[in-house]
């Protein structure tokens, strides 16, 4: 089994055939599908080495405490234990971080959040490692807590990172504020004076977790050259490596990462979790070390979605024109910065939603606190704002006596509109149309549980099989929402991706090998790359090389950017390969046909060189012979620029994506139970490279939004900032019983700036599904509901 899985022989990793199936726009099936349904696909937690040890992490029981001493002797004395490491054993740099290197590999003299890693152990059995960790004696002295804006900025508040010198520190209004971004445009005071209707409300979004199923895990193998090879589930191999090399005290080329199977990500694998720990233990013991978090640890091992407190004021004229929006968004970033600065930028710049508003006054901040660290999660800063602005749109429409969809449509942005940041929306923005489409879908039948005159089918009722009701107090509501999300990395980030393509003839048949460092986390990038290469090169057999750091960076599998960016890189590299094919063809066969002199007229199809008139003038087998073409190219999207720190003005985003939802819910008002009956979506994807995957992404994203609406929240105890529900028993994610039918309408309005006109898909559906579900619950119950998740007690007033 080992022999056919070596990383050095990628051709042997695949089974390819000559079928030319699956070009751009077709619902090609996943190339890894068979392995995944047979149990053969190797996820990071499945890796095994005959000589390996198991790593385990000791974590802080306190949210804020000084460490007085650590005694590891009893742990080391346990038979089977090979190493115990604390902060004092670190070989080099002691901190890492995505934007700001403020996170210790192991806590030194202070812990800042509940669950922070304090020591690591390697042993020959996972249970031995756990028992050894339990024998490490740590003396703590609890410190006062910072848990919200008031405690963070109070006079004399403990500073999370005293003496911080990062690039945001200079303009942060307080050392416990990671970053602040205002967006100012027009004259809000004057607009307020003209407004007929003003609605001001506070909202709150709880701390959501990505809750991917495949736990944080990986295998670090010490190498003979003193370096380390890490097999890991991550979202961005190169940024992991760039953070790891300094803390391991190794040059970057001695830290080699290879992607192993990833069981979902949703942002939670952007930051390091066990990577450094596994590598440190492997280098210390000289043996391969595997770490697999259990679910409890996983809740401490990654950042969460920022919980938020939001204050919004909307003003509108009697005719239904939105005149101004003033808002303040306070995001709790927890103990370390992670990607909080970028989350602030998104929340601020997208805070008004997909609407045209001339006058805006926005402020978004992220706090440092002793709560769990928060960072990237699907929707990244736009989710929190969308919940609030969409609730506001309903509230203003109600004040005006207008239909909520019509009110949105009247103010909807379209191509040519100006964002509050001053950026021109220069590609299609079919906001009104998306709303029209979800509204036009047929409604699910009412009270389906009592249909056909038979006995009541409790499975279709709120409460389901618990048999809590036969429908006596069940009322229905319908709600709508729409959102705007940026695609790709923003604010001047040098966002690029790399692809390497090798075209050669094997057994008389052309074969293309696509090598990128893109993290396939389940989204289907590997499918799309094969489709693009097949389309561009006219080659049936495509092999996907395992993702590793031996090729240039692909950037992160986040921000809905990989089909755009690494897909773009694959296309761009294919173009270079095609040019080289034509150059070689011209050199060898140029005299045989006049069309060789006009490469613009030639394309590759079915392994042949074909003129625009359809005439075949050569074939790849003849042109290439036994000489491969092997090229690597980078692809960049158009440059963006940072937002002005005082006004928020600037061309900050590459592309926007839009999704609208209609939710239909039934609520048992006696018990406070909600059943989402249907969640319909309409989204513009620019170009559906793989329609089946696109629909799957929209449904998956919608479901995570539904989860935030009615059940998902990490509960942190108010007194001690301790996580109270780190398990799937207590942190609930939607099951198949909680998830309704999800019809999806897909629009394809090309963005001329993007490869194939495509638009990033993955995140937009997560935005609007939450406010749509809550709007439907409001419609059913008449309750204001200003906080998510909505819990039974919010509905019953208990």
């Amino acid at each position: 089994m080992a022999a056919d899985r070596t990383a050095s022989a990628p051709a042997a990793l695949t089974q390819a055939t000559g079928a030319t199936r699956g070009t751009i726009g077709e619902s090609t099936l996943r190339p890894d599908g068979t392995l995944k349904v047979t149990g053969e696909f190797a996820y990071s937690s499945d890796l095994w080495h005959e000589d390996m040890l198991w790593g385990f992490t000791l974590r802080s029981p306190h949210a804020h405490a000084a460490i007085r001493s650590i005694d590891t002797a009893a742990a080391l004395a346990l038979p089977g234990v090979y190493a115990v490491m604390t902060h004092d054993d670190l070989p080099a740099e002691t901190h890492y971080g995505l934007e700001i290197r403020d996170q210790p590999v192991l806590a030194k003299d202070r812990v800042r959040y509940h669950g922070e890693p304090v020591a690591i152990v390697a042993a020959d059995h996972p249970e031995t490692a756990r028992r050894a960790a339990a024998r490490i004696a740590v003396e703590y002295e609890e410190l006062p807590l910072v848990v919200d804006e008031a405690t963070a900025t109070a006079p004399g508040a403990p500073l999370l990172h005293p003496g911080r010198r990062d690039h945001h520190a200079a303009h942060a209004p307080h050392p416990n504020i990671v970053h602040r971004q205002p967006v100012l445009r027009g004259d809000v005071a004057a607009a307020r004076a003209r407004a007929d209707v003003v609605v001001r409300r506070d909202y709150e979004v709880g701390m959501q977790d990505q809750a991917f199923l495949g736990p944080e895990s990986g295998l670090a193998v010490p190498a003979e050259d003193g370096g380390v090879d890490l097999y890991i589930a991550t979202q961005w191999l190169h940024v992991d490596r760039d953070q790891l090399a300094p803390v391991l005290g190794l040059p970057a080329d001695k830290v080699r990462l290879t992607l192993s199977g990833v069981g979902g990500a949703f942002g939670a694998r952007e930051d390091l979790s066990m990577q450094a720990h596994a590598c440190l233990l492997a280098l210390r013991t000289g043996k391969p070390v595997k770490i697999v978090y259990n679910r409890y640890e996983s809740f401490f091992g990654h950042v969460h979605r920022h919980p938020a407190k939001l204050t919004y004021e909307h003003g509108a004229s009697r005719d239904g024109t939105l005149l101004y929006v003033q808002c303040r968004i306070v995001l709790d970033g927890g103990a370390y910065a992670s990607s909080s600065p970028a989350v602030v930028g998104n929340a601020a710049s997208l805070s008004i939603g997909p609407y045209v508003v001339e006058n805006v006054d926005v402020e978004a901040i992220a706090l440092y606190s002793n709560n769990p660290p928060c960072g990237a999660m699907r929707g990244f800063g736009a989710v929190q704002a969308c919940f609030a602005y969409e609730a506001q749109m309903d509230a203003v429409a109600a004040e005006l006596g207008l239909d909520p969809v019509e009110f949105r449509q009247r103010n909807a942005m379209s191509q040519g509109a100006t964002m509050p940041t001053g950026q021109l929306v220069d590609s299609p923005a079919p906001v009104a149309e998306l709303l029209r489409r979800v509204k036009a879908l047929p409604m699910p039948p009412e009270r389906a549980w009592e249909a056909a005159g038979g006995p009541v089918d409790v499975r279709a009722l709120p409460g389901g099989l618990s048999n809590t009701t036969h429908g006596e107090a069940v009322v229905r509501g319908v709600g709508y929402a729409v959102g705007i999300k940026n695609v790709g990395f923003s604010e001047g980030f040098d966002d690029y991706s790399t692809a390497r393509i090798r075209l050669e003839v094997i057994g008389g048949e052309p074969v293309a090998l696509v090598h990128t460092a893109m993290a396939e986390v389940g989204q289907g990038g590997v499918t799309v790359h094969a489709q693009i290469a097949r389309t561009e090169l006219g080659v049936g057999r495509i092999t996907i090389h395992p993702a590793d750091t031996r090729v240039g960076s692909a950037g992160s599998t986040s921000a809905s950017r990989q089909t755009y960016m690494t897909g773009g890189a694959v296309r761009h590299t294919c173009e270079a390969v095609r040019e080289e094919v034509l150059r070689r063809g011209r050199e060898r066969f140029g005299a045989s046909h006049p069309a060789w002199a006009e490469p613009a007229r030639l394309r590759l199809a079915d392994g042949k060189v074909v003129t625009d008139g359809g005439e075949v003038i050569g074939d790849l087998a003849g042109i290439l012979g036994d000489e491969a073409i092997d090229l690597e190219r980078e692809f960049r999207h158009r440059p963006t620029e940072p937002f002005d720190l005082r006004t928020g003005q600037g061309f900050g985003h590459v592309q926007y994506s839009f999704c609208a939802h209609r939710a239909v819910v039934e609520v048992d008002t006696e018990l406070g139970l909600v059943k989402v009956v249907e969640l319909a979506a309409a989204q513009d994807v620019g170009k559906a490279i793989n329609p089946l995957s696109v629909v799957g992404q929209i449904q998956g994203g919608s479901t995570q939004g539904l989860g935030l609406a009615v059940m998902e929240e990490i509960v942190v105890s108010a007194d001690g900032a301790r996580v109270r529900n780190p398990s799937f028993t207590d942190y609930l994610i939607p099951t198949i019983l909680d998830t309704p039918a999800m019809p999806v309408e897909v629009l394809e309005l090309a963005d001329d700036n993007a490869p194939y006109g495509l638009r990033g898909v993955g995140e937009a559906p997560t935005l609007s599904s939450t406010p749509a579900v809550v709007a439907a619950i409001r419609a059913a119950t008449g309750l204001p509901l200003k906080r998510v998740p909505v819990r039974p007690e919010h509905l019953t007033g208990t």
Partner: protein
Amino acid sequence: MRVNITVNGRPYEADDVWEGESLLYVLRERMGLPGSKNACEQGECGSCTVRLDGVPVCACLVAAGQAEGREVVTVEGLADHARQRSTHTAGAVRPGGPGAGRTGEPEVRPAEPEAIHSGEPGTGHPVEPEPSRPGQVAPLAPVQQAFIDAGAVQCGFCTPGLLVAADELLERTPDPSDADIREALSGNLCRCTGYEKILDAVRLAAARTGKAV
């Protein structure tokens, strides 16, 4: 302790098993069968669903000793299990139907270095030489093929558990209603798909199998 379990029709034994080890741990780490997944190890997610004497259970909640002398079917044995079932019933799965899609697509495996691989037996081992190795192209169970065809697999971490549960449902209820499917799969979490395509897959498998008999 020593544990003897018949897994996917083959006898296995594992030595030096700790009292606290779960069936899931023994399958994954000692017998080299990592197909059953470890997403919560608390009986909450269904990723580790296997059949124990025919009954779907969370392998993470079964102590290894409880499985002594019993029959286990994991996702690795699902295709064989389905094949045996279909030879016991009136008609076999149509040749060229489910499974026919397998040869049309390139596969992509996550990389593993030499000497590192998933699922190599630790201290557990098959009692008899293995008749076949993974990687051989054998027809998939109808429900496996349907999951691929319907787009019900994204990251795929939930897939093995869902497949075992769905296959058991179809064995009991060849033509399930949507409510039946939801009920049967309610113990299996999926974070990626939103379940709609999983429903599609089970409906598709039911339709295809129904046509075959």
